[in-house]
Structure formats: C-alpha cells, structure tokens
C-alpha cells in the first residue's frame, strides 16, 4: 500500500501542476483584457479560476487515469482493491488541495469577494466531486465501451469549448472580472440538487468502477 500511495501522491502533484498551468492561462487572459485592474480583486478571483481548471482537469485527467493508469498498475502487480483505494486517495487529495489553496487565498485577502468565496466552498466541493466522478465514470466507460465514452467526451468538449468561448467574449468586452463575480455569486448558496448530484455521482462512480475493475483484463 505504501508504494501505491507513493505513486498516487506523485500523480496528484503532477495533475495539480496541470490545473495550476490552466489557471495561469486564465489569469494571463484576465490581466491582458481587464482595464483598471484592482490587484486585490484580481487575486480574489484566482481561486475561482483554479476551481474551473480543477473541474475540467479532473474530467480529462480522470478519464486518462481509468483508461491508462488503472490497467498499468494492475500489470505491475497491484491488487484491484488497492488500485481503487489509491485512485480515491488521489481524488480526495486533489480536491482537498484545491479547496485548501482557495481558502488560503481568500483568507489572506479579506474583502467582499473573499467572504463570498469562503461561503461558496460547499458548492465548489460538490462541483469538484461531481466532475471528478464524471471523469472517472467516463474513463471506466472508455475501457469497456470506447464508442459511448467517445460520444460523451465530444459532447463535453463541445460544452467546454462553449464555456471557453463565452469567457473569451467576456474578456474581449473587458468585463471578465464582473462576469466571473456574477457567476461566483450563484455559488454562495448550495442547491440541494447539486449536493444530491455530487453524492449520487460519487456513489455511482465507486460502484461502477469496482464492478468493472473486478473483471477488468489488462491490455496495454
């Protein structure tokens, strides 16, 4: 188990680096598009960018984890139970680190945006859990029914492309910060359906993953 944890811990930091890079891209777009930028405000919205990066990052990375790393680790003699536990350890760690970084930034920069951000943490947690589970389910689907996962990935990529396009339009209007804050305001209250979705996605993911993992055949 020790070696399994070592692998997944390293994998977490590598994934975190991808998320932070994506966040940096969003930050640069904001820096170059916003007029009369308030640095305090800019820093306060960074955690939202990190969450966006983590959401898309987990969708994509978890798909890869399931379709590549799970069979790879099985081929290295790891048990299916440990692979499942290791993956959920990684998922917990990456969500915890993302939320901890967000909370830290908001605590260090007091203000209205930061207070709203801190109040949004339960909602963000649910979004991250749901997207992480979705990515994982997609990866599991990918190993078994490639065509179905491909269709879903195309739909999701279309959605993600739309979101990026929307942000681009907002950025070109020099209203990126205002737009971000408007979106963030909706996160303060945790809708019951989101909490339910997150719990259901997680339960479905674990059950589905274990069901397929038990019968999974290693193909590299």
């Amino acid at each position, binding site marked *: 188990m020790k070696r399994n944890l070592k692998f997944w811990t390293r994998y977490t930091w590598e994934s975190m680096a991808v998320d932070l890079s994506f966040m940096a891209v969003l930050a640069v777009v904001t820096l170059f598009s916003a007029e009369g930028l308030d640095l305090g405000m800019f820093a306060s919205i960074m955690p939202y960018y990190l969450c966006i990066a983590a959401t898309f990052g987990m969708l994509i990375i978890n798909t890869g984890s399931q379709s*590549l790393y799970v069979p790879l*680790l099985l*081929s*290295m*003699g790891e*048990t299916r139970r440990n692979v499942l536990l290791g993956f959920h350890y990684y998922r917990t760690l990456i969500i915890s680190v993302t939320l901890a970084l967000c909370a830290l930034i908001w605590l260090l920069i007091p203000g209205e945006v930061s207070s709203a951000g801190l109040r949004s943490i339960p909602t963000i947690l649910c979004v991250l859990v749901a997207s992480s589970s979705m990515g994982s389910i997609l990866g599991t689907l990918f190993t078994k029914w490639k065509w179905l996962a491909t269709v879903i990935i195309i739909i999701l990529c279309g959605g993600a492309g739309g979101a990026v396009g929307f942000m681009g339009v907002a950025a070109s209007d020099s209203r990126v910060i205002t737009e971000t804050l408007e979106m963030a305001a909706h996160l303060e209250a945790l809708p019951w359906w989101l909490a339910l979705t997150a719990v259901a996605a997680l339960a479905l993911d674990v059950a589905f993953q274990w069901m397929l993992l038990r019968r999974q055949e290693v193909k590299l």
Partner: protein
Amino acid sequence: MSLHCENIVKTYSGKDVLDKVTLDIQTGKIYGLIGRNGAGKTTLLSILAAQNPASSGSVTLDGQRVWENRKSLEKICFSRELNANAESGLAAMKAKEYLRIAATYYEGWDKPLEERLVKLFDLNVKKKLGKLSKGMLSMVTIIVALCSKAAYTFLDEPVAGLDVVAREQFYKLLLEEYSSSGRTFIISTHIIEEAADVLEDVIILHEGRVLIETDTQAFVDSAVHVSGKAEEVDAAVSGLEVHHPETVGRSKGVTVFLKPGQKVNESRDVSVQPVSLQRAFVALCGEEEGKS
C-alpha cells in the same frame, strides 16, 4: 515454493480459450511456453499473474491464492508485450516514466541493473513509448522483467523485434540473472530454435490445452524423424505415435514420439534422425490430421 494452477478455464464469447489447464511451476527453472498463435499463451500468463480473471479454476503460490493477494503478487512479474500504438494511452508515456512506475511498484527493483541495461541496449528513455520501435519496446519489457527481481517472472515474446545481437544479449542476461538469483522464468516465444538451449522445461499449449509439460531435453530426445520408402517407414513406425507425415513421390518422412521402452524398428530400411525442439513442436502442433 511453487506456483500452481488448477483447472483454469477462460471463456471468451462462448469459446474456451483455456480448457482446464493445470500446471505446477517449480522454483528455479526456466520454462518455455510455446504454442501457435491463439493457443492461449498470453491469456494463461495473464491469469497466472492475476492480470486477467479466470472463468473458473484457481492459481495459488505456496498454497495462497494469488488473486487480490498483494503478498503473492509481489513475487510475480508479468512483463507484458507493449502495444504503444497511436490509440493506446501508453504511446504518450516516456520510457523513463514507465520504468519509474515499475520501480515504484516492484519491491526488489534493481536500479543499478536498470541503468546498466539501459546503457547496454542503448535505449533512449527520454523517448515516448509510441516513438520506440518494436525492438526497443521489447527492451523496455526485458528491463522491467529482469530488474523487478520477482521470484516468478513471465516474459511474453521478449525477443520480438530484437535483432540477432540484442537477442544474444538477452539470452546471456537471462542466464546470468538465472544463475545468480535462482529465479523462475516463463518465456513465451515463437523463436523456439534460439531459445531451446536455455529452456529447462517446456510447456506446449495447443488450442487451450497443455499438450506437454516436461524436461526440454527429454522431450527432444523422445522425438525422432524417420524417413525412407513409404512402405518401409510405415512398417518401421507401426504401433508408434506418429505425427506430421510428409510424402514426396514414394518417399515418406514422419516424426515419431517414443514412449519409454519404445523403439523404431530399425531392421527396416529407414533413416532415423534426431529432431530439434522446433521440429518436434511443429510435428506435434502443426498438423493434427497427420497424427495416427
């Protein structure tokens, strides 16, 4: 210490790929697992290493079940043939990353040996697996197998794509590792002739069943090629296990597998020659209809 599998059955789409395979793999031997394409070699190795579940049957190591047993799995390494094509996620992984993951998971990983082999094979570990040639991918699997130091190590077509020099290097390294560690190796290969000298025991798998599991030399010694005029050959091998008859005009050649105490009737005008492992394998698995 022994690895034992009992009545392994593996079914795909209603077809038995492995049919009640029972084997006892002893420690400190080099086994050759040979069989035609689709005989079930890779499936068998995958099941022995708990990488694939069996439809029924069990695999045990020292009496302990191997499936989902980390302690048993630590003693087994099945270094699979890598298929790093464009569709595979492995294609984007660098060789050094693959080796790093292997080093993390195999408790006894021999880092100095890894460095030595990378240098010996002149392997560019900074390259992505998808950019490596088939021979270089084989080198990666050989490095994992040898450096894992697992008591039971399985290699699936380890010399596929290797040039003759690299193949010689591999067999030399294998014998070096075997004599210094006493590990058990199971090598699945199609290049039988080259491997014959290093294989102590041979397991012949045919259509999902174990046909032969015996000492390689004893198996080769039990087979002879008998040739001559057709009627003389038929008379000389009458009552014996005859395989792979070949007829050219009035001449005939057959491969005969002799049981202890059996002999070819040499009073007939026939030529009796020893056969190689490859020849014996072809005679056994090449043409079922030739058996009489």
